[in-house]
């Protein structure tokens, strides 16, 4: 179907926690968001069929939009008929299936296994066991064999050795892994991504019983890494053996004009597309999707791309695992008030049991958003090993940050989403564009891009994303309260100047679509990307939040005393207009004084 014939698009994203149906329609020659619904997903008990949730979501969206989408037999009406009945196309993404269970085996934990682990992060994988010749726990062969058996892998990823390097240790490991897989009644396939010279020997070792998929070495030399072939193989096995068996997927496949894409890959397509549009190819585009069971980080810069899919790290049913990876203090440090550790634990553990629920009180909201900061930070820490960005003081230098996922797109104000992204990403220097996937359709648009790139380009250029604003993050350190820089901002709304102190956030309100000229004069301790103490003049666009000068240090420097820290958090929240309690208390005090 040609672009100009497509008047309506239904984007369906079937996640582990919720299923979304988003209707996009042409108005005044442009694609616009019309209606959206979100319902609990039904891939799990008691339904065990994702189509139940998909029908619920479509029915709800149809009701909100006042459009009939399903016929009497429950079939989607496609293409759109007269009287706005049905839709022209449906695009779908899925992240409701469990991850692929992978055992990784390599010579050393710090070299080959690191590469193997990074390869598994490209898609929905769960590393259920790892075997290394230099294991610190010194397990016996029997213990390791038992461990591989208990892990019940769906695939083995065997790596090790550089091309042209020593072969004996790799062969010893291969013999052990061959024994481990041959013991299973239905042996899982093995991907071999080690020293290429050993492919035929490993094939004869495995015999006909085990399917061997040999790909290029993930570590051709000690200093280089080549993950793409192993990643592609894992992705294919995931789609063939796990995702394909998701009950109800066939209905989505029948309805969607393209392939049903894993949600993370959808985000990856969008980030790569935006990187190609990037006017500053020196810097990169970072996409973050915080899901219920999985968080995804897509990173692209000048054509180089990395995707990090963190299964078991999300804001839904996997939220409980956060308590194993982070301390309660790492969560409560983001809160403006004292909250007991047990209160945080109760919230996390209840959310794990009922992941689809939303915060009703301000305190619950702030706790959930504090957790989200930690979830994003952990995902970024994993992504950092392979992303293509330049960094300064451990902070990435970026052109664009895109936020996706319920906790961000359902935040009450753009300020909430902005602060969560800023606190977790902590970008360095000037990040010209911070955007939010408010409709939740972005990964699904990525799936649509594979068949209708023109439609998606139009959606991205005109209104699918909410422009939050731009951020300037000076790199350097000083005493809290010391001057970091002076600024002058000029736009058609007038001129404004001021100083920014260390430890603070400064928000300059410049609405979306308004261009502003910004002059920044840092003190000699601070760098804006052109050298310490050197000023810059830049033209930037406003947004729903505006221009933010983040003078909290890179990495963010926390006040030591708890009371001072809580006061600082209050000020950051207030500066972005996302916290009212203090203002209300102060107003009440003032009224009492009067």
């Amino acid at each position, binding site marked *: 179907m040609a672009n100009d014939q497509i008047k309506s698009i239904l984007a369906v994203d079937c996640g582990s926690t919720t299923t979304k149906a988003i209707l996009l329609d042409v108005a005044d020659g442009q694609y616009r968001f019309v209606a959206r619904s979100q*319902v*609990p997903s039904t891939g799990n008990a008691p339904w065990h069929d994702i189509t*139940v949730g998909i029908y619920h979501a479509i029915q709800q969206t149809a009701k909100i939009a006042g459009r009939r989408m399903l016929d009497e037999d429950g079939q989607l009406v496609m293409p759109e008929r007269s009287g706005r009945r049905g839709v022209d196309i449906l695009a779908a993404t899925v992240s409701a299936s469990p991850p692929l269970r992978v055992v990784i085996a390599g010579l050393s934990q710090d070299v080959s296994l690191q590469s193997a682990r990074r390869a598994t992060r490209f898609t929905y994988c769960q590393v259920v066991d790892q075997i290394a010749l230099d294991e610190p726990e010194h397990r016996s062969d029997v213990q390791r*064999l038992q461990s591989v058996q208990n892990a019940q892998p769906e695939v083995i990823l065997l790596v090790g050795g550089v091309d042209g390097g020593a072969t004996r240790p790799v062969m010893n490991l291969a013999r052990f892994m061959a*024994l481990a897989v041959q013991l299973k009644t239905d042996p899982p396939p093995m991907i071999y991504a080690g020293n290429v010279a050993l492919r035929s020997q490993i094939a004869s070792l495995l015999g006909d019983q085990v399917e061997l998929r040999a790909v290029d070495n993930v570590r051709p030399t000690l200093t280089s890494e080549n993950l793409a072939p192993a990643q592609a193989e894992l992705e294919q096995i995931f789609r063939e053996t796990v995702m394909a068996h998701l009950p109800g997927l066939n209905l989505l496949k029948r309805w969607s004009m393209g392939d049903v894409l894993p949600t993370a890959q959808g985000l990856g397509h969008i980030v790569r597309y935006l990187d190609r549009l990037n006017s500053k190819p020196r810097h990169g585009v970072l996409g973050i999707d915080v899901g219920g069971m999985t968080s995804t980080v897509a990173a692209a810069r000048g054509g180089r791309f990395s995707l990090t899919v963190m299964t*078991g790290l999300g804001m839904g049913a996997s939220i409980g695992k956060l308590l194993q990876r982070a301390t309660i203090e790492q969560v409560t440090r983001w809160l403006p008030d004292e909250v007991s550790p047990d209160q945080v634990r109760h919230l996390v553990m209840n959310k794990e*049991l009922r992941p689809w629920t*939303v915060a*009703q009180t301000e305190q619950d909201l702030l706790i959930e958003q504090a957790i989200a900061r930690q979830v994003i930070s952990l995902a970024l820490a994993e992504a950092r090993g392979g992303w293509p960005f330049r960094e300064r003081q451990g902070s990435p230098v970026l052109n664009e940050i895109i936020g996706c996922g319920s906790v961000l797109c359902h935040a009450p104000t753009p300020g909430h989403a902005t602060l969560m992204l800023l606190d977790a990403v902590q970008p360095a220097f000037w990040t010209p564009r911070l955007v939010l996937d408010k409709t939740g359709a972005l990964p699904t648009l990525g799936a649509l891009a594979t068949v209708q790139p023109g439609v998606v380009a139009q959606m991205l250029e005109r209104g699918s994303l909410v422009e939050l604003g731009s951020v300037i993050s000076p790199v350097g350190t000083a005493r809290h309260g010391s001057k970091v820089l002076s600024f002058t901002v000029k736009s058609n709304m007038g001129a404004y100047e001021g100083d920014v102190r260390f430890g603070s956030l400064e928000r300059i309100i410049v609405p979306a679509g308004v261009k502003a000229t910004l002059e920044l004069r840092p003190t000699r301790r601070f760098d804006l990307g052109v050298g310490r103490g050197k000023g810059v003049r830049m033209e930037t666009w406003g947004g729903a939040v505006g221009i933010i000068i983040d003078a909290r240090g890179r990495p963010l420097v926390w006040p030591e005393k708890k009371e001072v820290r809580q006061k600082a958090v209050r000020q950051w929240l207030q500066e972005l207009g996302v916290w009212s309690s203090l203002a209300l208390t102060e107003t009440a005090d003032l009224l009492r004084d009067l």
Partner: protein
Amino acid sequence: MYYPPETRASSLTTIRRERTLPLPGRVLVHKGQRVEPWDVVAQAAMAGGYHIVEIAQALKIHKDNIRQYLLKQEDDQVKAGEPIAARRGLFRRVVRSPVNGFLAAVGVGRVLIEADSALMELHAGMRGRVASLHPNRGVTIETVGAIVQGVWGNGRESHGVLKAAADSPHSMLTRQDIEVGSQGAVIVAGQGMTLEALEFAQEAQVRGIIVGGLEVSLLPAVHAAEFPIVVTEGWGTIPMSPVILDVLKANSGREVSLNGRVRTGWEQQRPEVIIPLVAGEPSSEEQALDRPLEEGATVRILRQPYTGATGTVVALPALPKKLPAGVTLRGVEVELTSGERVFAPFANLERIR
């Protein structure tokens, strides 16, 4: 039109539950057979562990040549102490099996012996009739009775006589509430319990506890308890839903089956309490799940400030409403059992039926 998640708290219904082995085995009952909770309905042999025997090293031979020295082949049964490989001649040597089992694989220079398996037994877990058989895996058992679903459990399973210690949803179970003669009882608590109560319950050999909320500080003791604990509302001190408490109190003195197994994430399983009733009483089929929320439905609110509050849907406003958290969402007006009328977003509702 919203389809909320559901919790069962039904006083009389037909209940069917699948009981299956985690690995293939043998089904021991036949269709239509009546079973008690303690009856074994299926069994399977569990792998007994592996033993690697270094043949080449022991016989001082090249590791590629071990097959010609083996006395047993793959899949052959072996007994502990039985010779499995031997070198004859001047330098005669014998290698013996360390365990009873079978020769699972022959590798380079070594063999792998899988030890004899242990028997795993699957119990019926509830009183009822075998409705259908799943060859090599298990059965579906059917019964007529009451059912209450929980949200969390400590993974244990048992059965006993239901004993309502809680007068109201807000009761806190203390040591004094557990009588000395509580051996074999499944105790119904209200909004929570103390550590002393839990410890005394262990001493008194109770068969289970059903409680509204659970403080996270009790988690180690709850995991250590030898009997099932089923939580109906969630973590924290949360009053038990009056609807659930009513069902449990009405069945006080009856035999119950408690399944405290819980799974979250990719696979989900909720703990539950099943109370089979005497034959001949009327029953209704478990209702279809696919029903939109409507006025008159009994719902439970899942988040603060109304966590655990139960009530009836009295209105479904067309327009969304702004919550104290600042989010604007669609939802329903609920008249709580306390008489208070509150707004709750769809996402924070669970239908109880």
